[in-house]
C-alpha cells in the first residue's frame, strides 16, 4: 500500500498503536522469558521462587539431564517425519476436498460437509478408538500418527470459507478453456489459496509436533517410533516421580533429587517450542501475498 501523505491523526494513531503493540509484546513475552530463565536456573534454587526474567544461578544442567536421559535422536527424526508428512498430506487433501465444496453444483456438497462438520462434535472416547486402531493394525505403526486425523473438519471449513472468496468466474473461464476439475483445482485454486493453506500447514504442523498422547497410547513400546514430545513428557514424568509424588517412598535415596518438575518442565518447553517456532516466520511470508489474487482478479 502506498500512502503518500499522512495526517497528524494518522501519525498519532500509528504511534499509539506501536506503543500498544510493544506493551502487548512485553506482556506476551514475559511468560516465555520467565520459562527460559527458569530452565537455565539451578533447580533447587528455583524452588525458593523469585525467578523472573533472569536466572539467579545459571546452569545448563536441566538441559543436560534431558539430553542425557531422553532418547532424543530417534525421537526428533520421527517428530520431524510425522510433522512434514502429515502437514503436506493434510494441506493437499484438505484443499482438494474444500475445492469440491465451493462448487455450488456439486451433488454431494451437503453430504460431505455434514459428515465432516459432525466430526467436530462427536467423540467416541479413548477405548473404542483404541480398539479400532488395534484392529486396523495401527498399533506400533507410524501411520497411526497420520491417518486418524487426516483432513480435520475445522481446517476444511476454514479453507472452504477462504476459497469461496475466490471469484467463481475464474473457475468458469478455466472450464471454458476445457480444463478438467483436477486441473482447475491444481492450477487455478491451489495457488490462490496459499495464505490459508499456510495457515492450515501451521495448525497441522503445530498439532503434530506437540502431540505425545498418541505415541503414549499407541506406540509406547516401539522404541523407533517414539516422538520428541513423548520423550520430553517422559523426562518430566521422571522428575515428578523423583521428587516423591508416589506415596510409598521409603528411603531417602529415592526422595533426593537435583532436578525438579518445575525446572524440567521449563526446559522441555523450550526444547519442544524452539524448532516449531522457527516454522512460523517462514510461513508468514505467504500471508502478505494477497497481491497475487489482486493481480489475477479483474
Amino acid at each position: 500500500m502506498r500512502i503518500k501523505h499522512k495526517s497528524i491523526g494518522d501519525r498519532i494513531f500509528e504511534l499509539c498503536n506501536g506503543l500498544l503493540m510493544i506493551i502487548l509484546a512485553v506482556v506476551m513475552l514475559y511468560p516465555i522469558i520467565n520459562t527460559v530463565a527458569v530452565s537455565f536456573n539451578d533447580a533447587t534454587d528455583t524452588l525458593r521462587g523469585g525467578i523472573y526474567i533472569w536466572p539467579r544461578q545459571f546452569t545448563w544442567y536441566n538441559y543436560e539431564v534431558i539430553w542425557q536421559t531422553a532418547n532424543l535422536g530417534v525421537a526428533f527424526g520421527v517428530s520431524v517425519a510425522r510433522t512434514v508428512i502429515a502437514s503436506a498430506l493434510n494441506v493437499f487433501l484438505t484443499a482438494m476436498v474444500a475445492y469440491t465444496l465451493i462448487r455450488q453444483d456439486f451433488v454431494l456438497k451437503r453430504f460431505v460437509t455434514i459428515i465432516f462438520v459432525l466430526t467436530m462434535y462427536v467423540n467416541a472416547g479413548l477405548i473404542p478408538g483404541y480398539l479400532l486402531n488395534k484392529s486396523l493394525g495401527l498399533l506400533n505403526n507410524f501411520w497411526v500418527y497420520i491417518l486418524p486425523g487426516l483432513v480435520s473438519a475445522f481446517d476444511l471449513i476454514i479453507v472452504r470459507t477462504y476459497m469461496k472468496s475466490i471469484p467463481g468466474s475464474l473457475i468458469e473461464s478455466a472450464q471454458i478453456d476445457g480444463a478438467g476439475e483436477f486441473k482447475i483445482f491444481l492450477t487455478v485454486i491451489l495457488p490462490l489459496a496459499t495464505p490459508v493453506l499456510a495457515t492450515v500447514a501451521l495448525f497441522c504442523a503445530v498439532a503434530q509436533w506437540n502431540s505425545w498422547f498418541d505415541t503414549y497410547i499407541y506406540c509406547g513400546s516401539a522404541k523407533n517410533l517414539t516422538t520428541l514430545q513423548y520423550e520430553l513428557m517422559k523426562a518430566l514424568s521422571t522428575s515428578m516421580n523423583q521428587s516423591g509424588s508416589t506415596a510409598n517412598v521409603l528411603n531417602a535415596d529415592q526422595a533426593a533429587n537435583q532436578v525438579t518438575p518445575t525446572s524440567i518442565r521449563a526446559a522441555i518447553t523450550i526444547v519442544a517450542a524452539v524448532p516449531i517456532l522457527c516454522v512460523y516466520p517462514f510461513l508468514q511470508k505467504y500471508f502478505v501475498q494477497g497481491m497475487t489474487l489482486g493481480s489475477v482478479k479483474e
Partner: protein
Amino acid sequence: MRAVAKTANKPGNKKSFWQKCLQQKTLIFMSLPLVLLKILFAYVPLLGWVMAFQNYKPAKSFFDQDWAGLAKFEFLFKDAVFLRDIRNTLAMSLINLVLGFVTAILLALLLNEIKNVVFKRTIQTISYMPHFLSWVIVAGIVQNVLSTDSGIVNDILLRIGAIDSSINFLGEPKYFWGIVGASNVWKEVGWNTIIYLASMSAIDPSLYEAAEMDGAGRFNKILHVTLPAIKSTFIILLIMNIGNILNAGFEVQYLLGNGPIQDVSETIDIFVLKYGMQKNDYALGTAAGIFKSVISVILVFGANWISGKLGEDKLV
C-alpha cells in the same frame, strides 16, 4: 458470486441425481475417499457409545457387558453438583467465546495497521508464543502474579493506593471466571489472530485505494474494507465455536481452582474426571460425551439456521 454459480449450474439443473454423479465423477473422486476415511475413524468408533448404557468393564467385549439402561445419565442429572458444573462450563465458555473473538479480531486489525513489515512480523510472532506454553506453566505464572504474597498485581494495586490490603484473587469466587477468561486471552489471542490475518491477506489492495479515493479515513477503511473481508471467516468460526459451548476445557480450571471457589470453578470435564475416569468408569465419561455431542449438534445447526435466515454465510 452466487449468481455466477447459478449460471454455471444451468445445464445440469434438470438432470437426475445419478447422471449428475456420473458427470461429477472427478469431484466425487476428490472428496469421497476422505469422507470414507472420516467415517472409518470418526464414526465407526461411535458404536462404542453403547457403553454409556452399560456398566462397562474394559475386560469384556461390548456385547458381554451388564446393561445399565439410563443409570449413567440419571447419575449425572440427579446430581446438583453436575448441574452446577454445567452452569460453570456455560459461563466460562461464553466468556471465552466473546473475549476470544473480540480480542483476536481487535489484535488482527491493529496488526494490520502496522506498516513496518519487520515490526509487524516480530509482534505477531511474539504474540503467538504463549500458545506453546502448557497450562501448567501459564497457571503457575498466573498464580504467582496474583499471589497475596509479593504478587505483582497486588503489589501495583497497593502502591497506587487502589486497595488497602492484598486481595486474594484466587480465593474469591467472584473473580474466578474473569481470571480464566483473561488467562485464555493471554495464552491464545495471538494464535487466534492467525486465521484472520490469513483472510485479510486475500483483500484486494485496490479496494483500499478505491476507498481512499472516496476520501475514506483509516477508520472507514477498516469498517468498509477490512471488516467485510473477514466477516465470513468470523461468522463461520462463530457458528463452529457455538458448538463447543460445553467444552470450557478443564486444565486451567483444574489448576487454578481450589476448595473455597469450587462452586464456580468446577466444569463438566472435571466432574467426569473425578467421578468417571479416576474411578475407571468409562461409561460415565461416554454418557457425558453423548450429552455434550447432542447439545453441540443442536446448537451448531441452530446457529447455522439463524445465520442463513439473516442472510449470512452458512456452515452447512
